[in-house]
């Protein structure tokens, strides 16, 4: 679902871009290789990373901030940070897509906490609906998604809602308390207990 109303032109643009890039970058296929190349100072690799990942990462930032201008700032900050920290990624390894999403989420959370969030119903086109538990059905049953889905489904409903609202919508505990609605103390304990149960369910 793309609710920005901006027309897309992916395939052709991407191919044209690939042809102007150096051989080396064109052959780098995985996100991990691109991050490693960026760590060695390749701007072309960072640009390719942007081509591949910016729509997904901008979508994550927009879901959290709900305002295009703030989401765009978060996306820009994130890519500058990806450039600066790429060497850290290569040192610690890990899953590239998760590392990228983590950076954009932290930047979006920073921005939204700074700006405050009196704007929930600002723009109906962006969707003012927070994620509800049934969205778990949209998680892939396949691969790693399956484990998370199963473990989330095993949580008490309030614990699950707290974790999904915090992760996907970037809500603070006070915002979750206002939305459910529930006392702040209950939300805090649901988050804690939910994380503990998830951890023991997900642990290999």
């Amino acid at each position: 679902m793309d609710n920005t109303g901006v027309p897309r032109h992916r395939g052709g643009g991407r191919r044209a871009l690939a042809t102007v890039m150096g051989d080396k970058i064109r052959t780098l296929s995985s996100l991990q290789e691109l991050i490693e190349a960026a760590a060695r100072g390749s701007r072309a690799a960072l640009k390719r990373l942007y081509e591949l990942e910016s729509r997904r990462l901008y979508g994550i930032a927009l879901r959290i901030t709900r305002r295009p201008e703030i989401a765009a700032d978060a996306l820009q900050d994130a890519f500058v940070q990806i450039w600066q920290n790429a060497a850290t990624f290569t040192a610690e390894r890990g899953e590239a897509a998760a590392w990228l999403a983590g950076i954009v989420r932290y930047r979006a959370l920073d921005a939204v906490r700074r700006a405050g969030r009196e704007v929930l119903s600002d723009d109906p086109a962006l969707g003012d609906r927070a994620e509800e538990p049934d969205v778990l059905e949209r998680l892939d049953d396949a691969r790693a998604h399956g484990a998370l889905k199963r473990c989330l489904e095993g949580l008490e409903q309030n614990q699950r809602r707290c974790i999904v609202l915090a992760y996907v919508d970037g809500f603070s505990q006070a915002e979750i308390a206002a939305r459910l609605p529930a006392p702040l103390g209950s939300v805090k304990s649901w988050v804690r207990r939910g994380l503990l149960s998830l951890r023991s369910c997900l642990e290999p």
Partner: protein
Amino acid sequence: MIPADRDELNILAGEYVLGTLEPATRQEVEAALSGNAELRRAIAFWEERLHPLAALAPTAEPPPQAWDRIAARLGPASPASTATRLWQSAAPWRWTTAAATAAAACLALYIAIAPPAAAPSFVAVLRAPQQDQPAWVATAGGNGLLVRAVAGGTAPIDRSFELWAIAPGAKQPLSLGVIPADGRLELGTLPAAIRSGGTLAISIEPKGGSPTGQPTGPEVFVGALIQAR
């Protein structure tokens, strides 16, 4: 304060990833990150395991000028990347297992019999690309080679750090061995290949070292050997 209790640490890391920590606690976590590998692992666990939830946010087209704004803010490629490019020039070349084994045996034999003759003294400071902070320090000379961790001496879980020498003009790095978990590797003799200088590098390899005799993982620390008096 970062809790030592495992459950509390996992909750703290989880809340850090969810973004539900109070700003002061969050800053505390960020300040502790560089010195606390367990905390970093706990955070990486949540970042990776919760990541499928990110797919619940619909993708969207960023503003067209976003990339140009990013490009304008990127600093120039750091000088450290020059050192890593040297590494890259060591071609993506793979020895067969047999050749690697033979070469390792030759190296071991060489180390055993080479005279500890008047080799010049060298020092090297190894850094992560684009980072100023020294991570490893090496001293080399007639007494051999000693590499010690200054910071970041812990390899990721189930991985090993492996030390490599790149002789001036060499086509491929030479393994100097896997660095033990205590972050200290000592060789009795300075390998001939780098007796007149060269570059040291450390890569992340499968536990126990590269199976191919050549680096298979990312090179994470690099430093030139500098002749000392």
